[in-house]
């Protein structure tokens, strides 16, 4: 371990020893990152960073306080600890505030880490961007402009301990490309984007990504308005992931306890189609959302949320678990040193079905709507699951596209939607949206469309 980090932990410990506390924790996070933007065969923007910071929490007589800082001079740390002491006094006691005494990280068998962050030169990474740009333009003549093409990589480390525990650490590397392009046809312009983030740089398929970025733009040209009615609808896997990411808060035990989830009181009830099973699993080797322990030092677990349509369990951090006298599911996740641990999925996984994407989109009998993008997800209702979204996509018949469609909204309720599942695809992909969402495309019997 870095000598300075060790010294900082020791200094904080020596200062905290002087204060009466039942428990405390120190969370240190370091992030080194690099972002390269590329456009018209040139690097447009190049950014590097090294950043670290620390959060300290005190627990005493059922009160909890939380402070953070990112300078490690003694003066700054002492100031932070003083604030922590003051907040502790102001907080009302709550017997459910909790911290771990001991920490036992889960053993996950990840394969060797990819150190391309340091081992692969910057010119090589720029060459990849150039390759991706060429690929995008070669896909279709209608693709005229690159709005943004980016490469990002980061190397993160965390160190964590509580009053009685040793210091434990986790380390992760992530690589990704993303692109946003414009296709034009006369007066019409449409943008299309896509991205791919992986633990290994070489796992990113630039040809496929380039194809998808270009397709998402040019395939939408000359899109038509859509008639208002109910359509049998396929949501593409990235759209499904957007829904799951936003509405994952319905599965937070804290939200359920606070009457902020429509799933309150529904454990054991059938809430979705029998075809639908949903699991949170922080233990999957080589997956972006996997964690040996969460932001409170709780061991990661696998939690079945919905099994064959039946609601099984919610996700817990320490406080929500204490309230019900159960164990934390290891979902008290911190996204940085300045955020408090909140309940979030680790890897949220939809069990795949048997149908390929093409089979999913095949329906001889009537019109089928395929949604490739939605707008305004954050305006949906996190409490009751209602949504009303701007959408674009394709109207299909017999497995072929009749026309791209836009300027319409789809509306409904997330939970009711889960009951309307017709078939689940097998085109599983992973999407790092807050938590890591692993899901296929899904076909629904009926979604209400308001359009022309």
């Amino acid at each position, binding site marked *: 371990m870095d000598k300075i980090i060790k010294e900082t932990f020791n200094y904080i410990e020596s200062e905290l020893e002087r204060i009466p506390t039942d428990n405390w924790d120190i969370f240190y996070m370091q992030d080194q990152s690099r972002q390269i933007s590329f456009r018209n065969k*040139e*690097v*447009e*923007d*190049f*950014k*590097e*960073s*090294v*950043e*670290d910071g620390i*959060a300290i929490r005190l627990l005493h007589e059922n009160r909890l*306080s*939380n*402070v*953070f*800082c*990112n*300078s490690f001079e003694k003066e700054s740390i002492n*100031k*932070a600890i003083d*604030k922590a002491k*003051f*907040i502790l006094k*102001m*907080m*009302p006691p*709550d017997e459910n505030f909790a911290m771990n005494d001991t920490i036992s990280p889960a053993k996950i068998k990840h394969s060797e880490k990819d150190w391309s962050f340091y081992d692969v030169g910057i010119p090589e990474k720029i060459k990849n961007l150039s390759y991706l740009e060429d690929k995008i333009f070669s896909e279709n003549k209608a693709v005229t*402009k690159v*709005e943004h093409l980016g490469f990002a990589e980061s190397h993160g480390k965390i160190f964590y301990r509580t009053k009685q525990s040793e210091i434990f650490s986790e380390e992760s590397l992530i690589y990704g490309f993303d692109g946003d392009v*414009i296709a034009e046809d006369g007066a019409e*312009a*449409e*943008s299309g984007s896509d991205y791919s983030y992986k633990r290994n740089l070489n796992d990113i398929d630039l040809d496929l990504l380039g194809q998808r970025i270009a397709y998402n733009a040019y395939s939408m040209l000359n899109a038509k308005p859509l008639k208002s009615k109910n359509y049998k609808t396929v949501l593409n896997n990235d759209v499904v992931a957007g829904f799951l990411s936003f509405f994952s808060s319905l599965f937070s035990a804290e939200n359920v306890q*606070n*009457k*902020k989830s429509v799933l309150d009181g529904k454990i054991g009830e059938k809430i979705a189609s029998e075809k639908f099973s949903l699991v949170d699993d922080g233990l999957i080797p080589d997956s972006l959302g996997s964690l040996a322990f969460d932001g409170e030092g709780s061991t990661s677990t696998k939690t079945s949320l919905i099994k064959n349509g039946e609601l099984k369990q919610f996700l817990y951090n320490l406080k929500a678990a204490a309230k019900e006298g159960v164990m934390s599911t290891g979902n008290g996740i911190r996204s940085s040193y*300045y955020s*408090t641990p909140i309940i979030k999925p680790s890897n949220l996984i939809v069990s795949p079905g048997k149908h390929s994407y093409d089979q999913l989109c095949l329906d001889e009998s009537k019109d089928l709507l395929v949604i490739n993008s939605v*707008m*305004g*997800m*954050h*305006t949906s*209702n996190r*409490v*009751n699951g*209602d949504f*009303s*979204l*701007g959408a674009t996509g394709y109207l299909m018949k017999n497995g072929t596209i009749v026309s791209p469609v*836009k*300027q*319409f*909204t*789809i*509306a409904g309720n997330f939970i009711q939607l889960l009951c309307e599942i017709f078939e689940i695809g097998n085109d599983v992909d992973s999407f790092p949206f807050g938590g890591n969402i692993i899901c296929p495309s899904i076909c629904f019997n009926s979604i*209400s469309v*308001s359009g*022309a």
Partner: protein
Amino acid sequence: MTIFDSSFLSKLIDILLSKGGQYSDVYIEDEDLFSIIYENNTIRTMKSGNERGIHLRVINGDKSYSSYSNDLSQTNLENLAENIADSFSSGRICQAINVAKNINLASNCSIDLARYESYISDFSNASKKIYSVSPKICQATLSYSQTFKKVWIANSEGLSCSDDRQYSRYMINAVAKDGEITETAYEGPGITGSKNIFDQYPIDLTSEKVVKRVLSTLDAKPAPLGKMPVVMMGEAGGTMIHEACGHAFEADFIYKDTSIFGNKVGQKIAAENVTVIDDGAISGLYGSYKYDDEGVAPEKTILIENGILKSYISDRLSAKLLNIPLTGNGRRESFRSKPIPRMSNTFIEDHDTNSAEILSSVNEGILVKRMGGGQVDITNGEFIFEISEGYVIKNGKISDQIRGASMIGNGPDVLNDIEMVGNDKDFMPGVCGKYDHVPVSDAQPTIKIKQMTIGGR
């Protein structure tokens, strides 16, 4: 406490330009923050923190190279600056002008936690009151946050300046349930400056608004769907002008030729009664500042005057590239980001009609009393917004309240479709999420739009 003397700053700025580039700057920030979340009649979290960091940047033509860090030691900063300079191979082409002033990082804006003790009892009273109004109210969340942010900017043109910014905001969110129906409502006033936000926006008035809205929405009916005229009231907030139109005036999009308003200065792009302004210099508003994050003072920028496109919103890079004036809109969330053209306080200017007259002119349509969130595609201007409080208009009068509705449309079309403009504009604070987050505000008077598509359940 760290002091950067002017000679060290000059040296840093000079290293950045040592191997190429025309412009370099240094941005330093020190931020103290306090926040409380009050839920279920008790404090859920209380948090305080301090963050500081530096962002170094070189601009060469239309390219930028930058680095940021929270390590302010001189050795680290010289290393970072040398690494950035090494991205160039052309050799020095530009000489920096020396910075005259020292930067003293001794922060005079440190948070005094004791002052927040009285807010906690105010929250406690307000929260109890909200629950007592109706058994249908199942959840009340109140939150408060205050940020003291000091920024220092120095650049290769010899500029050095600093800005002290103080942001206060609170939010009240209520959830109500009636049988199977669950609805939420919220209000979130925000100000800049040293005034007490609770004096300007009393907590009782705000919670009354929230409670009234959440309860009335429970009884509301589903919206009629399809295309129809829409009246947006002044108090609905200017989210639409920000999202659906404002972004298309940002000069980085103009330079990249991805905005619908590119090359349209002097052309008619909106109805004649429409004037749109961005002004970061209005004191106290949530999107105001003394200097932007590149050390440029904000000003009143007329974007559309009587329907004609007048100017764009710029930062230093885009202003130089497009040869347009600096408008003081180079903004960033923190030391982690580079500045880009961002709106400040953006609004449709008042016109001559009063709101009652506008309402009575509509036979059948939708009245939007309060906007919710939304999203926009800058390339083509397509947008969606939720209607958090809306009503059916029948024969010029307000009829049934609607729930779960949203409206979709196209920014440029809407600008042309504004048939009437009122005189009751009202600013609402918000957070703009273009790449990263900065505080903004927006406003519009009551307007009548010829038609928009209403969606919903």
